[in-house]
């Protein structure tokens, strides 16, 4: 399997006068076809790292290489169209556009990139809605949907352009545990079906335990890196039990 993402000495600082460094020399490569979970305490820099992987933020120094292409040289607009084509986004809050129906929200990423969606794409959106059980809600507006339904729409939206990477920042952080389980299962299934890669930040130990690889970020550095392939799932789960601090407290932002 090839590396889908390679991070090369990523540093990230904020501020002009008071400089706060949040990421320190991160080297990381993520293999294709994996579910990678980032965990870590609040303020550890894991969300920042995810945003850099998601091409939403530029690193202060270091290179991001995606599918063998160095992204660092792209300008803002090139990055935007790269994001549109290659990355599907699911955030903690659904971030649907309230002015558009569920179906329209799902189609928007296609529309942004390629213009008015043809029949096949609308068909795919319908299929995705059916697949994740919201086929009845296509004509509804986000505020007419439950939290779980909203997040399902967001999942369908992230998949519409058949992206290489699904970027998920605590996608279930705002859902109750039962809904959270259902949404997670769906997400994993559909990612497998679409042969795409899932990169996720989570505070949920159970979700992390279901990943192929778990990377713990503490104070802007990689603290632990567990791989199911190498250690076996049980061993990973046991290791995660010890990282109590990472999962303490409710979902917060880092």
């Amino acid at each position: 399997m090839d590396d889908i993402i390679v991070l090369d000495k990523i540093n990230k600082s904020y501020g002009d006068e008071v400089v706060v460094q949040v990421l320190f020399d991160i080297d990381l490569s993520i293999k294709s076809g994996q579910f990678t979970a980032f965990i870590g305490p609040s303020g550890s820099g894991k969300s920042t790292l995810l945003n850099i992987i998601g091409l939403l933020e530029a690193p202060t120094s270091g290179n991001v290489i995606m599918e063998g292409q160095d992204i660092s040289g792209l300008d803002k607009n090139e990055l935007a169209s790269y994001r549109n084509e290659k990355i599907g986004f699911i955030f903690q809050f659904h971030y649907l556009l309230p002015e558009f129906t569920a179906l329209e929200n799902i189609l928007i990423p296609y529309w942004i990139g390629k213009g008015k969606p043809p029949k096949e794409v609308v068909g795919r959106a319908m299929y995705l809605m059916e697949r994740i059980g919201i086929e009845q809600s296509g004509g509804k507006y986000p505020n007419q949907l439950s939290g779980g339904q909203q997040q399902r729409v967001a999942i369908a939206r992230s998949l519409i352009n058949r992206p290489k990477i699904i970027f998920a920042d605590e996608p279930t952080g705002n859902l109750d545990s039962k809904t959270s389980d259902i949404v997670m299962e769906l997400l994993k299934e559909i990612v497998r079906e679409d042969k795409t890669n899932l990169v996720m930040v989570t505070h949920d130990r159970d979700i992390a335990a279901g990943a192929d690889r778990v990377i713990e970020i503490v104070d802007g550095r990689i603290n632990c890196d567990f791989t199911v392939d190498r250690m076996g799932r049980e061993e990973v789960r046991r290791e995660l039990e010890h990282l109590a601090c990472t999962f303490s407290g409710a979902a917060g932002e880092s």
Partner: protein
Amino acid sequence: MKFNTYEFMVAYRFLVNGRSQTALIILGIAVGVAVQVFLISLMDGLQRNLIQRTIGSSPHITIAPPLSSPQPLGIGGDAIDDYPKPLKTEESEILSWQRYGDYLDGIKEITVAAPMVNGNCYIEKGRSSFPVIVKGITLPEADVIYKFKKNIINGDLRSGGNNVLIGVASSEKSGLQVGDTFYLRNQKGTGDYFFIQGIFDLGSSAANNMVVMSLDRARTFLDITGISAIEIQVHDVFAADGLAKELRGSFSQVKVESWQERNKELLSGLRAQDTSSFMIQFFVLLSITLGIASVLAIIAIQKSRQLGILKAMGTNDKSAARIFIIQGFSMGFAGALVGILLGLGMTELFMFGTKSSGGPTYELKITLTNILLPAVLAAASASVAALVPARRAAGLNPMEVIRNG
């Protein structure tokens, strides 16, 4: 600039979503456009009316001999009849007027070129005498300029021989009526009896103090060999000035004068009016622009969350900006349309109102330019106003939205 269809869709949804805001700003633009349409129509109508009144029943261009100043009275009489008459020259009369006439008939812009003679005379009635201006005309031509046929208030037009038309002012002064015969004395002291065929009212006191007879009768009566002037009416009154200049080049021996040169004060008044109406329009536009800019700026802030999401999903900066330009233009366009209707309504209402209240009725001039100009300007300024929020939208970093929830 290449538009993507989703930009229109997003812009449309943003506008529909903020219905009341959108409606308010469209109404604001509409009122501005309506005021402008009405104002321009009013000003235009007023100016045309004023010009019509000033020059409607008078020649647009006059061709006169260089020494056409009024001849002094009282030099006539038998005493000087024994002296040889001074030689008639082109200095005081146009002798070869037929030649001018042929030339002028060939010019397309000219509606009519009418030969005319005039002179100061007196209506004698008992012991009193009333000064009048005698004017000799050829009827079909002169009627185009003076519209006697339309303005006859008593009697009819049959002039010829000693049948004459007199103005309503001289009729009132002298007490003469249609059917009366009166004695008219010329400057040389000789005179003749004339029969009043009709009385006209041309609307200006100078014109209403005329006695009008046929050209040939007037020439013998006033002892003029040529004619006093050629009066010209043109199709486009504002082209008179230019045409006069051209004619001046062709005819070096005569004096060519356009109505603009005779009415300098009127024209400068009209120009001042133009300036003030331009100022009003400018400030109305300015306030429209500022209004739209501020509302769109608010919309841009209200929608920054949506913009952030769109940008995360691949909307680039230009595209985000275009969403707001589209919104600005759409509101400007809709406002302009509503404004045109409102403005036309106001204009109709005004005309109806002045007509029914018996006030001075004059047509407000509704022309395509009067309607389209303010509408196009409003739509354009709405688009310009949208540049402010568009810049904001372009500069928005999606991370601001994502990070702050």
